[in-house]
């Protein structure tokens, strides 16, 4: 981060205006979250009225918690996200290593095929993937939600770039010491790619925690439903909308990710930036 004032930064009135603009935008950006907090902590009469003297209550959270098995939903989501991330780390590391350091016939063609998935994500192939899952028999399971995503083209792409940036000398030095290629991978490449792994892990976790359409289609029962589908089922009411309970439910489901983000936001942002996209 630059320590000196950028020579082009505005001063005086210009700076004041820019600051004001930035702050207004920031306020607008958190407004929905602020509203959610307001409504969730106040009784239903105040969901549209913003009287400052309104009493605070935890009732909404209690009702929301009892209205749907959120504990189970959380468990499912955590299991799913962990499973997917673990598999992704393993698979993408192996694949990226192969692309970065090995010569084999058809390498470019295969890499192009991998890149296809960057554009054509499993999300758009819901109809066919659903059929495949039926045949395999993984419908309505947590593994079924995660399986299409485990080979991540984005991960392979990122890691391949990172691996390519590792100096060959380190690789050769390890070989000279008698390491097998896998040992070289483990001892040399993986530690050096740590920032990339972190960045990728954060992207993956937040993507899969928030994923909705595919889990909606593939899961049917409470035992497999992740938190996003649970929230939608809970708030998809033909009944009247009760904003207080819905926002309470919303906060419940987003709390873990939000808290993690607030605590680790420095790492979040830094790792994105460090991994960078060249």
């Amino acid at each position: 981060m630059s320590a000196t004032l950028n020579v082009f930064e505005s001063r005086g009135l210009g700076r004041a205006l820019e600051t004001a603009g930035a702050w207004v935008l920031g306020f607008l950006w958190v407004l929905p979250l602020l509203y959610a907090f307001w409504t969730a902590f106040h009784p239903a009469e105040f969901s549209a009225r913003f009287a400052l003297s309104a009493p605070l209550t935890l009732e909404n959270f209690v009702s929301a918690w009892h209205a749907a098995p959120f504990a189970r939903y959380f468990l499912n989501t955590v299991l799913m996200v962990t499973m997917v991330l673990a598999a992704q780390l393993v698979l993408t590391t192996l694949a990226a290593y192969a692309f970065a350091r090995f010569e084999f016939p058809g390498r470019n063609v295969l890499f192009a095929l991998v890149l296809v998935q960057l554009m054509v994500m499993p999300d758009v192939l819901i109809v066919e993937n659903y059929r495949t899952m039926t045949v395999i028999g993984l419908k309505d399971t947590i593994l079924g939600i995660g399986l299409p995503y485990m080979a991540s083209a984005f991960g392979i792409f990122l890691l391949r770039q990172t691996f390519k940036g590792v100096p060959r000398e380190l690789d050769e030095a390890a070989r000279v010491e008698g390491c097998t290629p896998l040992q070289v991978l483990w001892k040399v490449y993986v530690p050096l790619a740590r920032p990339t792994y972190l960045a990728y892990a954060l992207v993956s976790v937040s993507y899969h925690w928030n994923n909705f359409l595919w889990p909606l289609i593939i899961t049917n029962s409470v035992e497999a439903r992740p938190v996003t589908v649970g929230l939608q089922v809970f708030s998809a009411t033909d009944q009247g909308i009760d904003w207080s309970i819905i926002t309470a439910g919303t906060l419940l489901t987003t709390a873990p990710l939000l808290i993690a983000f607030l605590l680790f936001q420095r790492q979040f942002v830094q790792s994105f930036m460090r991994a960078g996209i060249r």
Partner: protein
Amino acid sequence: MLDRCIRGGLAALFAAAIGWVPTLAWGQTKNATEVSFYYPVAVGGPITKIVDGLAADFEKENPGIKLKPIYSGSYQDSITKALTAAKSGEPPVTSILLSTDMYTLIDEDAIQPYDDLIKTPEDKAWLKSFYPAFMENSQTGGKTWGIPFQRSTIVLYYNKEMFKEAGLDPNRPPATWKEMTEYAQKLTKRDASGKVTQWGVQIPSSGFPYWLFQGLAIENGATLMNAAGTQTFYDKPEVVGALQYWVDLVNKYKVHPEGIVDWGATPKDFFEKKVAMVWTTTGNLTSMRNNAKFDFGVAMLPSGKQRGSPTGGGNFYLFKKSTPAQREAAFKFIKWVTQPSRAAQWGIDTGYVAVRADAWETPAMKQYVAGFPPALVARDQLPYAKAELSTHDNQRVTKALNDGLQAALTGTKTPEQAMKDAQAQSERILRTYRR
């Protein structure tokens, strides 16, 4: 740190993969017959708790049966989930789904009729005890495919205090279309700049506008479909006339909000005193009672050429691929939950119309009605109630109507054009079912 992460990750992967298997097995209890069923929640109130309570009570009286209620969201979500499960070879044993989904479920070969199970004289009497209006969407081809459980009609809720303010008699709700228009004109308030602060009447048009529209259509003397579910009549003059009246409320009389009115927000609009009269399901009655902080009344829908309302709500369906034991168990549960006392209690707890006449004679119901007369309105409307729109490929055919209604209400098409296009779409879809 990272290799610990990787190791931990792999461990989690294995754990999850292994954990998945017992989770699947956990669902099967060895000794009891398990009856799973999907149920939607379409009205306000702690329905999930009530259903769980019912399940617990039933299991106490029938120790050999284990009930597994699965909450599946809205009616739309529920039919999707039930069919998904059926197509994957693991259907629920029974489910509460829209009465109008009957043809779709039959076409998808997902359900079986009840007639084989109804053998004893008591069972036959039980079947006869349901209101005929509700049976219209439950039987076809001489067989019974659904048992009414949570059924409703549309009713008119009105704010008595606003009536008084406008100089109207709070105990005389509008009885005809003309009266509704007049009342609404008196009840619509505007502020100094001409912006409306209080609407006269509001009929929701999001999600499933066809249901609300059917009220207007029946009142104008129209039928939307034939009994076999193979033909619709969207472009008949009476249907167009009903739509024209709705559009006029918005554009000509200006007593109804513009654009699409959200179904979910309508009760809240009523509580927030943004509107004086609303059309919505009687199933919201208990929720209205709990949340409206003012004196309100409930009335039958006004008559155009006649009184009328579509029925609504869900039936119990019996799915194929269940074992005979499960089928018997499910049937037992369905009979148990539709006993007069239980049907009455369900009606009291939710606001749905108790589905059989003798339920209204039970002491609990009599007491409830004495303390809260509006509960009778939906029942008294039943003689005027007609079957809800239901055809083959129901979702698609109703979507055609929904789109047309929304087009007319947002002003992009005239009612005539909108209904003509809707009928054309529907014809395309239903043609194949008439061969």
